[in-house]
């Protein structure tokens, strides 16, 4: 009798175990780094944005095609002078269960523009007032800014409860997932939030972002089934999964501008002929094949084709691959026998390999290139902040609006480590903020032409984002920004 009872209990336990495992679906995602902080006003790391996209929402958010859709704002209205934005909030709830109010929005956005605490306060510098009443929030700008709405889609403009404390490790947002557990260097576990305003319930109950810094380990984990998805797989390991029938790889432009940055102020690079010679001596096809395994699109100016609306096509003939002409340009500039140092950031194999190929191609036209490898912290200090370099290489992450990407080439901009300076370009970028529609597009087209003609740097490629996942996973969405949209995935 006892034996039978025990058996029955065992059977019940087994049934429970089996049924609960069938009901709870978990998605394991391999990411290479931990978030820096989950406090939206302070975060600066791409690794945070990637995960926080599922936890936090702003008034508006990015759609996969790069356009903006309403998130906590159901709709919005822009005044005719382009200076007043009126948002109508929808009924939405925080992960804590409380309803989102206009006061929460005002508090979060005021904090986001406070220079004392916010990391990206300068993005909100044009904001004069933020007022909220009932379900309406009104934001007034001191001057028109066509890029402003895109700022509100960034994680730094996310809305959280006004009374929330300790957001850095205990985020409270309104997104389709909420944080359940964060073990630094190990994993970040998200749980589904059932009260999301969309009324839609994501397929996976749990999403676990596993921190796996090494790409080979990430791939082996995918092959062994410990991990279901690698959102950003390096092209160099593609061959390890390419022939595996259980794995599929989806690719799309990353919206990253890889540039061989040239110090425009340092002789002889202050001579446009020298910069053009550098641009004409490189064969991008070789670089894309050699460094990115063919997974990239060639670039000839400062915007990626991922920003389809503003991208200026057809600039490949401005400084075409022509080593003979490149050598002539160097002679005309009196720079034959040129010798310089190419500084490569060793943390990024793609940039290192691209740089090595560039060095070979420059040496082929008689330039003497000394390659110097530096670690990322050193790179940021020497190349980016002190601007003490000849030529270097880096990837500049794209944004949703062209202004944010192109403004860094304007004279005196703090991010302009190329020391590029062109009066017409400066004027255009200023003008772009107050223009609308096709006028605005024309302004940025012209700006891209100037960058190409003046060879502000040697624009190389936009590498493709390779998302590798189990064959059964459906619904993967590529965004022009650095995010993993877990709520859209199912199987």
């Amino acid at each position, binding site marked *: 009798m006892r034996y039978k009872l025990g058996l029955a209990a065992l059977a019940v336990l087994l049934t429970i175990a089996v049924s609960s495992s069938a009901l709870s679906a978990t998605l394991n995602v391999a990411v290479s780094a931990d978030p820096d902080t989950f406090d939206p006003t302070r975060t600066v790391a791409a690794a945070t944005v990637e995960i926080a996209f599922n936890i936090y929402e702003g008034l508006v958010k990015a759609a996969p095609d790069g356009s903006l859709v309403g998130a906590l704002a159901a709709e919005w209205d822009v005044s005719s002078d382009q200076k007043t934005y009126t948002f109508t909030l929808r009924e939405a709830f925080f992960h804590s269960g409380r309803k989102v109010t206009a006061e929460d929005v005002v508090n979060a956005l005021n904090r986001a523009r406070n220079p004392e605490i916010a*990391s990206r306060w300068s993005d909100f510098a044009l904001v004069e007032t933020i007022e909220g009443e009932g379900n309406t929030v009104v934001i007034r700008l001191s001057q028109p800014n066509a890029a402003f709405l895109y700022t509100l889609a960034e994680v730094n403009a996310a809305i959280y409860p006004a009374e929330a404390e300790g957001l850095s*490790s205990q985020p409270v947002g309104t997104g389709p997932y909420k944080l359940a557990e964060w073990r630094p260097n190990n994993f970040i576990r998200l749980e589904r939030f059932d009260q999301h305003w969309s009324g839609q319930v994501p397929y996976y109950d749990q999403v676990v972002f596993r921190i796996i810094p090494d790409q080979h380990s990430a791939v*082996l984990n995918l092959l*062994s089934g410990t991990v279901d998805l690698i959102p950003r797989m390096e092209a160099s390991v593609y061959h390890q999964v390419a022939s595996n029938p259980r794995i599929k790889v989806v690719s799309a432009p990353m919206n990253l501008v890889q540039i061989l940055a040239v110090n425009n102020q340092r002789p002889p690079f202050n001579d446009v002929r020298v910069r053009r010679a550098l641009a004409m001596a490189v064969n991008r096809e070789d670089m894309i094949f050699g460094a990115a395994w063919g997974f990239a699109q060639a670039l000839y100016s400062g915007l990626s084709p991922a920003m389809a609306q503003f991208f200026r096509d057809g600039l490949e003939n401005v400084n075409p691959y022509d080593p003979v002409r490149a050598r002539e340009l160097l002679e005309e500039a009196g720079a034959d026998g040129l010798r310089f140092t190419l500084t490569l950031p060793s943390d990024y194999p793609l940039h290192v390999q691209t740089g090595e190929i560039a060095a070979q191609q420059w040496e082929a036209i008689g330039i003497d290139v000394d390659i110097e490898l530096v670690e990322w*912290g050193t790179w*940021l200090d020497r190349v980016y902040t002190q601007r003490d370099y000849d030529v270097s290489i880096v990837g500049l992450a794209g944004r949703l609006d062209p202004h944010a990407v192109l403004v860094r080439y304007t004279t005196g901009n703090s991010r302009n480590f190329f020391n590029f300076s062109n009066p017409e370009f400066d004027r255009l970028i200023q003008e772009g903020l107050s223009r609308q529609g096709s006028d605005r597009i024309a302004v940025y087209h012209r700006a891209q032409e100037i960058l190409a003609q003046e060879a502000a740097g040697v624009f190389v490629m936009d590498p493709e984002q390779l998302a590798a996942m189990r064959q059964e996973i459906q619904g993967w969405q590529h965004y022009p920004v650095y995010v993993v949209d877990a709520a859209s995935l199912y199987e």
Partner: protein
Amino acid sequence: MGAYLVRKTASFVCVLFIISALTFLTLQVLPGDPAQLLLGTESSPQALAALRRELGLDKPAPVRFGQWLVDFVQGDFGRSIRYSVPVKDLVVQALPVTLSLAVWAVAVSLGIAVLLGVLSAAYMARWWGQVVRIISQLGMAVPQFWIGILLIQVFGVQLRLLPAGGYSNWQSLILPIATLALPRTAVLTNMVQVGLSDVLKSDYIRTAKSKGLPWRKVLFKHAFVNGAIAVATSASIQLIQLVAGTIVVEQVFGLPGIGQLLLNGVLQRDLPLVQAITVFVAVGVLIINLLMDYLLMFLDPRVRFE
């Protein structure tokens, strides 16, 4: 004995102070600072200045070191810059992983090495004594990360017997322990074998054999204890070296241990984190050394406290 303890403690504190000062100095000399690394290629001078102020980096270096020292002595290890959480929490989470890796790796390699080393020393002339020697030479030559990747490929991906990486339960530690233990087994086998062969050639062993003692008794009772002194010293050095070894292995297997934490801390110039880990590791090394002193004294009565 009392004087000895006082002297030893004083030298502990001195060593720890010098180590933490050197660590601080090294991170000061390295180019780049944590605020810059957090902000990356989107930073502006205003944002950089604000973040530096918030992190307290705008104060002069000696002031910051003094502040750190005062806090540390009081048990406040500070907040990690990279992870925005208390350093203590990070270390407490990471320590069990690294400790189990190191202790198990040493235990496993020591066990196997003693067995193989004794056998190959005692039966040097036989063919499998030679085989053990060759394998141990090979084990010393193969790089650790390569062993790790090979083990993942075979047991994690092909056979699917063990996790390929990450940390979920004790099974996740089997392959990393094997990876760490393999080269150490090779080194220790070699140590045991060389040490024991020397002892076996000595006069007192010949005497023992000639007076008719059984071979097993000669080997384990007379020869082994003398051979063990060298092995014990070498094993303690191996244990200390494991701290460096775990950095590589934790990286390959994606384990959330101290090594991984330290590496990220250095790359991000996360001073509070690096300082705390360095001091912890130093304390660990000092304690192991102390225990070794005692063990040696026990094994070799000729060693005495001076």
